[in-house]
């Protein structure tokens, strides 16, 4: 079995790209997991459209990427139990510091060509640890602009493979499909680890305390001026 982890900010076209992947590989058995925060309907849509097994989880109080990491091993055994060739995990991609990519997987980041020339910099960790970047909505920009956007992504990760697509039509995805077909297999799920170390950040906001101001919190806290982080014990 192979694992594909798709990350990217909200509404950049992750599900649209996943649809095109499934459509382009009719002879493979796909299983899909969506991780989201508030609402997600992709699981029902993809199940209805392709007749595949799907699941979703809401991350609740957890950072969605953290939630994804927690459930990943269960998800792999679920997919393997169904005899899947591919497990696709779609992240919610809200926290732009965490990256959900693991070892023994293909990590794909989805960016939108119209979300601003500075967007790649703002989501640098998500790009830096990915194997491939898929740039959507290139139907809405000029070629020169598309090429400048590509240069911006290369500025963050010179080794990343980039493909550009109109994800509604599925243009330009040949190289992506080939990479997926040749992607790494899950050899031993017990040894899978995250590619990067997620930022540490536990404070009393995380556990539901709503007061504002660092004076009212414990754990890792911050002030407007001065030192980056501060640990405030009880």
């Amino acid at each position: 079995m192979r694992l594909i982890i798709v990350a990217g900010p909200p509404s950049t076209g992750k599900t649209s790209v996943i649809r095109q992947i499934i459509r382009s590989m009719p002879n493979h058995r796909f299983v899909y997991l969506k991780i989201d925060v508030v609402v997600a309907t992709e699981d029902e849509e993809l199940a209805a459209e392709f007749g595949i097994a799907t699941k979703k989880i809401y991350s609740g109080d957890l950072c969605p990427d953290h939630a994804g990491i927690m459930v990943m091993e269960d998800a792999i055994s679920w997919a393997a139990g169904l005899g899947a060739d591919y497990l696709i995990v779609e992240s919610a991609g809200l926290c732009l510091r965490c990256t959900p990519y693991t070892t023994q997987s293909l990590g794909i980041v989805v960016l939108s060509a119209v979300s601003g020339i500075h967007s790649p910099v703002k989501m640098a960790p998500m790009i830096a640890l990915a194997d491939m970047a898929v740039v959507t909505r290139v139907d809405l920009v000029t070629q020169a602009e598309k090429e400048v956007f590509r240069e911006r992504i290369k500025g963050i990760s010179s080794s990343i493979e980039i493909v550009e697509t109109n994800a509604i039509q599925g243009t330009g995805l040949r190289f992506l499909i080939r990479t997926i077909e040749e992607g790494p297999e899950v050899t031993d799920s017990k040894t899978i680890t995250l590619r990067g170390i997620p930022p540490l950040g536990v404070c009393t906001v995380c556990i539901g305390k709503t007061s504002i101001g660092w004076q009212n919190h414990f754990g890792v806290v911050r002030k407007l001026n001065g030192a980056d982080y501060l640990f405030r014990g009880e």
Partner: protein
Amino acid sequence: MSENIIHEITILPGRNRNGEPEGFDEIRIKPGDTISIVGPTGSGKSALINDIEIFASRDTITKRQILVNGTTPPDHFIRDPARKPVAMITQNTRCLCDLSVEDFLCMHTRSRGYRDQDLVEETVSLANQFTGEAIRRTVRMTQLSGGQTRSLMVADAILISNTPIILLDEVENAGIFKNRVIEALRRYHKALLFVTHDPLVSLLSDRRIVMHDGAVAKVLTPNGSEQSALKQMLAYDAAIAKVREQIRAGELITNAIPA
């Protein structure tokens, strides 16, 4: 890099909007050719040049296939801008990129693989030959007008992309000096495909592809038979251009317009 030399591009037929096969065997395009693409609004003109720009491989809505030198083009033609042999100016007249003109052009120069060249000045001054209101290199791309954006993109395609094939989607409708654009494009010996609704631009090409219902309906090769029509259109166009400039300059048009 002999594989990068383009002798010919071939368009293989796809399907029209009803899924019926297109009525041509193949269309071949060679460097130096000028081809116009005409047809009613929504007939699939932009879709045709989009297919060429991404070297469609039966993977677009039209199901066409594009060959280069008779075979499927190598991956890097598509994925590496530095080696991509086509530049396209889309119908879009806005640039969403929040960079200054000079930063945008520098970054595009780099993406096209020219490391230490400064093409900014040359590109901006060529663009300024096409547009009425001069572009300044420090202004942001998002602040350019439609006509200024289009002019800059044409100059960028000629000098920075510097590809053997240029695809233009409706050059005329951004109010730029279209004859100067076409003249510059010819001067730099590019294969040109224009999508156009403009009779003069259509008559200026060697071949004309007529679109209908998402498919190529006809390919016309006038072979000089339209010379007298072209001459007449040039005269009309010069007259119209003159009046347009007078109106833009705030004059009253009180004399008869020569035709």
